[in-house]
Structures are given as structure tokens and as C-alpha cells.
């Protein structure tokens, strides 16, 4: 079983990645100006009140002591409690995780089919009319800011035409599909050009590869060459790119989640950062790091499945 070393290599990386993330976010958060106690208690709370709240939450201890307490709890499996909501961070992450995961999956489903079609259409005749049109559309999709596009789409399709809800997560599977359509579409419009460019370049590169010439010399038909030789070889870099993008989306849907008021991890991250809710932010960063490692592992496994050389 040759996949074993691959998996174990990734799993060995995990503690290092998590430890690094843990130290860096802890330092960044605690060194940034701003006091969770002040933000919780409000403008009018006196200095004495703030001091009492800080003491209660152990925020008045030296930084190294707070860090050791945090790490000790972490090792015991406790990722802490929200300073503001007095609820476990794990419960909060669990509550906000599903909309984000659903949205990410939705984006992938919306983005992958057009990517493959557009890339093939472009690569078929590089520099041709189709290629030029797709390139111009791609540049437009890339350069239009996601937040602007999201606001415009919510105004037009939501508030104007009333086709889609402009906010929230909805009830049930089809409710989610309906509510998250505009957020997923806004994100896909930006994602498709990125992936298309990558796949197009790989396709063009592979059409002139030696093994394609060999296949052609052996008398294979063009269709067979494309589907069985060029595409599987060209798809690998794009698959890796998609993996990076999915990992990015899980932690980076902040903009669409804000514009469409989706109660996901991005919305929780923003709220917790603004409220200096230290342990929630840390729990989220750890979750994002974990998600990235897992997705990279999945992409590695898929790559190994598609490309036998990796398994060697």
C-alpha cells in the first residue's frame, strides 16, 4: 500500500502546522491594540469594572502564563470559551461551520463544469475567437471586485426581480440551495477564470508533449488522445489549484458572507476579530489550518489516483 507514506507524511506535518499557527495567532491577537473587556462592557464601563472583568477572565496575567494555560487546555482537548458569549468555542464553530461548508461545496459544483468547458473551448484553438472572448470575460470576472458584484447581484436578482433571497442560509437542503445561490455565483465568477487559465495553459502545453506525439504516431484518434491522454495529464495542476482555492474559501468567504449575511465561519471570524474574542479567533484559525491540511491530503490522494507516477 503505497498511499500510506503519503498520508503519514501529511499527518506528521499536522502538529507542526498547528503549533506554528497557534503561537503566531496568539501573539498577533494579544499584541494588537484593543481590549475584549472594554468591547464587551461598553463605552461607559469604568476602569475598575474593566479591570475586574480582565481579572475574572485571566487577561491580567502575564502573556506567557496565559499562553501556557491556553496550550494546556488545548492539549486536554478544550479549545476554550468565547469571552463574549460565554459559550464553548467548539459549539460556536459547529454552529457556523455548515453554511460555510455548504457554500464551499456549492461554489465547487458551480465552478468546475464551466471551467472544464471553457478551458477546452479555449485550448482547442489558442488565439482563436472563442479563446479571445473567454479570455476577455475571464479578465472581467477576475477584476470586478467580489463585494461590488455581490452587492449588485443582490440588488438586481434579489431586491429587484425577487428571484433569490438576498440573505441567510434558509431551511432544508433546497432552502440552502436557494439562499446560497447568489453568494456561490458571486464567488464562482471570480474563481472560474482563475481555474480556466490554469487548465487552458496545461492543456495547450500537453498537446505538444512527447507522449501525445507518440500516441498520435501509434494511430490513436484525436478524440481518444484528448480524453485519455491530454486531459488527465493537464488536470493535475488545476486540481492542486482548486485544492488551494477550496482551503482559501473555507477561511475566506468573509466578503460574500458579509454581503449576503450568511451565518458562516467568515461572519463569525469578523465578529470575533472586531470584538477581540481571542479564543474564538484562535479556534477558527486552528480550524482553517486543519481544513487546509485535510484538503491538501485529499488533493494528494486524488492526484495519486489520477497519476500513477505519484504512487511510485
Amino acid at each position, binding site marked *: 500500500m503505497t498511499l500510506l507514506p503519503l498520508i503519514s507524511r501529511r499527518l506528521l506535518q499536522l502538529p507542526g502546522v498547528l503549533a506554528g499557527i497557534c503561537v503566531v495567532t496568539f501573539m498577533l491577537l494579544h499584541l494588537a*491594540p484593543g481590549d475584549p473587556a472594554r468591547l*464587551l*462592557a461598553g463605552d*461607559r464601563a469604568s476602569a475598575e469594572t474593566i479591570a475586574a472583568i480582565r481579572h475574572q477572565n485571566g487577561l491580567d496575567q502575564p502573556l506567557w502564563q496565559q499562553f501556557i494555560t491556553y496550550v494546556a487546555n488545548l492539549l486536554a482537548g478544550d479549545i476554550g470559551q468565547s469571552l463574549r458569549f460565554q459559550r464553548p468555542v467548539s459549539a460556536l464553530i459547529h454552529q457556523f461551520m455548515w453554511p460555510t461548508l455548504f457554500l464551499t461545496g456549492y461554489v465547487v459544483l458551480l465552478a468546475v463544469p464551466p471551467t472544464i468547458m471553457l478551458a477546452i473551448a479555449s485550448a482547442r484553438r489558442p488565439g482563436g475567437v472563442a479563446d479571445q472572448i473567454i479570455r476577455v470575460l475571464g479578465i472581467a470576472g477576475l477584476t470586478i471586485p467580489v463585494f461590488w458584484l455581490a452587492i449588485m447581484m443582490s440588488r438586481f436578482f434579489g431586491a429587484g426581480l425577487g428571484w433569490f433571497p438576498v440573505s441567510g442560509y434558509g431551511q432544508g437542503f433546497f432552502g440552502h440551495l436557494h439562499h446560497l445561490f447568489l453568494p456561490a455565483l458571486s464567488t464562482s465568477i471570480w474563481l472560474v477564470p482563475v481555474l480556466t487559465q490554469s487548465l487552458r495553459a496545461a492543456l495547450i502545453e500537453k498537446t505538444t508533449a512527447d507522449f501525445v506525439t507518440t500516441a498520435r504516431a501509434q494511430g490513436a484518434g484525436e478524440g481518444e488522445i484528448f480524453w485519455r491522454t491530454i486531459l488527465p495529464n493537464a488536470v493535475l495542476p488545476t486540481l492542486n489549484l482548486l485544492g488551494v482555492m477550496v482551503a482559501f474559501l473555507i477561511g475566506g468567504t468573509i466578503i460574500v458572507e458579509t454581503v449576503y*449575511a450568511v451565518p458562516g465561519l467568515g461572519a463569525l471570524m469578523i465578529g470575533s476579530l472586531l470584538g477581540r474574542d481571542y479564543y474564538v479567533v484562535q479556534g477558527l484559525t486552528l480550524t482553517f489550518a486543519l481544513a487546509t491540511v485535510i484538503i491538501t491530503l485529499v488533493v494528494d490522494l486524488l492526484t495519486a489516483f489520477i497519476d500513477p507516477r505519484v504512487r511510485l
Partner: protein
Amino acid sequence: MHLFRTARALAAGTAVIAYCAGVAAPAVAAETIRIASPFPTTTLDPLRSAAAGNIETYGQLYARLLQRNPQSGNLEPGLAESWDVSADGLTYTFHLREAKFSDGSPLTATDVAFSLERIRTDKQSAYPAPLSAVNSVTATDPKTVTFKLKFTFSPFLGNLEIWNMGIVSKVDVEKQGAEKAFSGVPLTSGPYVVKEWMPNEKLVLLPNEHYWRKGYPKSDATVELLEIASPETRIAMLKAGDIDVVRGVQWAQIDELKTGENIDMRLEPSTTIYVTLLNNKREPFSNLQARQAAAHAVDNKAMTKAVTNGYAEPANTTLPGAVDFHDKENPGIAPDPAKAKQLLAESGMQGREVKILATGGAAEQQLALLLQAQWQAIGLKPTIVNVDSGAWWDATGKGDYDAAATWWYNETPDPDLAVRWALCGTCGSNSFNTFYNNAKVDKLVEQGTKETDPVKRAAIYKEIQEITTEEVSQIPLYYAPNAVAYAKRLTGIKLTPTMQWTLEDMVIAK
């Protein structure tokens, strides 16, 4: 026989229809009204926070001894049916009415004493100031609560109506501990109970069937308080019919919403005042003439028009226009660039750098830019530093800034808490982080607290406004109404000047 069978079938049919109607009726009535606000609910414990968002929530959950009439704004009996004041004005005795918590358990004088002593004396109480004149709160018998005051205190009854004066259950809080009692579904005494709290997203409320006011809330609708950070999103949601009420409508959005078919765009009176804080702790604005120069350089009428499209009223003194004893006659600080330049020259602060702190809000950003331009014109060197509100409070609290345009409001019409917050150097707030400190003003603040004659109080607060406006403890900018948009089918609901939704009076048109 045949006829009989038909009649029986008819009767059964009628019964089925009646049954369906009976089931269907509440289902139709149980609507959901959704209110979107930029301010999050971060706790359900009235002790823990005085931040916007929580203030609005407490009022729906916890009843208070007194309440304000939603129309007139006058104080009226709440949980206290009546009260007596001793001749020396130092003892207040409140007689409670029959009332229950949301689980049906009785609300007694013990709960009142517990709740208010908690706010007054707990070290972590976010805002004990409204009870600072109180010496003790005791339950004399199950229906009677007695307050002993340290001195005569005319704002007292009004202060008992402030949002953190809500009554919580002593039994429940002591049994579970405050953290547990308030982090999920707390026992409430007000018009609503918590159905579900999804922190950072929404708070879902249901009418409290044990609320002491019979027939209230008038509507049996479920109410959702949603946290929506982006102003554009809030408006899109309103237009799409996703929500029914929007708080914090941006000035630039008002005209568009006024033309909305099913939208009732209202500008409701508030005690909100926008000011520019000047840091008295360091140069240039530790210098009186430099502060006066900065104030004369600012054309607050033009700024008000530019930033609020004329929807706010230019401020003339350092106090909110809607609080009692606001001095309407005060001429304010006239825009006069020539005088500003001269004052700045006399102060010797020309060419000094001025660090303007600005948070991300649209109004704050515009105000910072306008201040920068006007101060540049008189020979200061202003730079804008953008921060989030956490860093803003950190920097202003330490005095690490020179100027900052911001707002505050007063939770009750009486100006006592307002002057203590914004103008008093010895009341714990450092004059709202300006470090303005004038012993005369501090003395007047104390006199205003203890004086009971309204005419004399008016004179005291007039003098406070004269001194602090003349000495520019802050630059008054404008008095902003609350811009709130409602779905037209809602009546009876509004956001009061004390930042409370009158949800229990809301009626939904069919």
C-alpha cells in the same frame, strides 16, 4: 334515515372545517417580524454590558420598576404599581404588583433587591452609575422594596427606567450561577422570552405569556433580532422583504427608501450627539486657544449638511439637543477661519501634527476628511489614522490621539449621567477620554446631581454648557435622529430616544 346521515356528515364536515380553521388561525397569526441592526447582542445578562445592541435586547427581556409611555415618553408605573417618597427625599418605597417570571414563578421584592444590588455593587457591573446615589436596596416584605439614598437625587425615578435596571430571578441566578443562567435561555420578566440565541447571528424571541401587562405584547408574532453588519445588505434585505425593520440606515440611503412603496422611512428623535473629541492631555489641544482655533475652523452647519444630507440638526452645545435643560439659546461656536488662524498663532501651535482617529463607519470617515481639510486651512498638520473600534477605544482611553469624531447618546432625558460621561474630569470617564478637566465644571456637576429645584438645575446645566462649549471640551457637530426604516404594515413600533424598541405595542396590519 338518509337525511339523518347527510346531516351527520354535514356536521362532521363542519367540525373538520372548524378544527382546521382553529389550527390554521394561530399558524397564520404566528408571523415572524425580523429586525436588523448593526449592533450585536453579545450577552443576555443586564449586568455584563452597556454596549449598543445589548441595550436594545435587555428592554425586551427584563421588566423594570418604571417604564416610559411609548407616545409621550413620560414615566409611568411598571413592576411598581405605586411609590412613596419620604419628606427628606432620601427614602423611596415601591409597592410591587402581582408579576411572574417566564416560568410562572412569582416575582417578588427579593428579586428586585437582588437584581438592583447586583447592578449597583458587583465589581463587574458594566454601568452602576445610574444607582450611584443609592445606599441600599432592601425587600421590606414580598411586595415592598425600599431604597435608601445617600443624598437627594432628582433623576432617581428616571434612572430606574434605564435598560440595565431590569429584574432577573434571584432563585435562578443563584442556583445556576450568572454565567449559566444568562448564556442560553434566561428566565425573563419582560414582554418576551428567548426562543433561541445564536450568538453572532440572531436572537429569536417569543411573547412571554407570564408578562405582567395583560394583553401585551399586542402581537403574538415571533421576533428575530438579526445582526447584519453591512448597511447595503440591510437595505437589500428590506427591499427584498427578508426583514421588516432596519436600524442604522445610512444618510445616503434615506432618500431612496422614502420612495419605497411598502417602506416607512422614519427619522425618530434621539439623544445622540456627534462631537469631535480633542485630547487635552497633550499638545496641541492641551492648549485652550488651540482648541478654540480648531473649533472656529470648523463649519459644523456645512459639515452637518454634507454628511447627513441635512437630516441632522447642527449642534450648538456640548450636550445632546434632546436632553432636559439643553440650552437652546446658546449661540454655539461660530465658524470663523480668520479668528481661528489668529487664535492658533497666539497659541503657538501652528504647524503642529494632529492625529485624527477614525473608525470605518461612513459618517466617521467623512467627518475625519472634512476636519482634516478645515484644519489644514488654518495651519495645522492633520493626518487620519484608520482603526477598528477595539483599537479606537484603546487609543482614546490612553490619550494616544489628538482628535476623533464620534458619537454618544444619553440613556435617559435627565442630563446628570450625560455630563458625568462627557464633561466631568473626576467622574471616571476622563470627560469621554478627552482628559478635559475643569474643577468648576466638576463642582457644578455635583450640584446638578443634588439640586431638586428644576429652575436651579436649569441654571446649573446652562452654566456647564456655557463653560464647556467656550473652552471646547469637545467640538459639537450635530444632533442625529435615529434613522429607522419599517415595513408599512407595522404600527406602534418605534425606537425610543433611550434606544428601546416598543415591540410590545407593535401591531401587524393584515
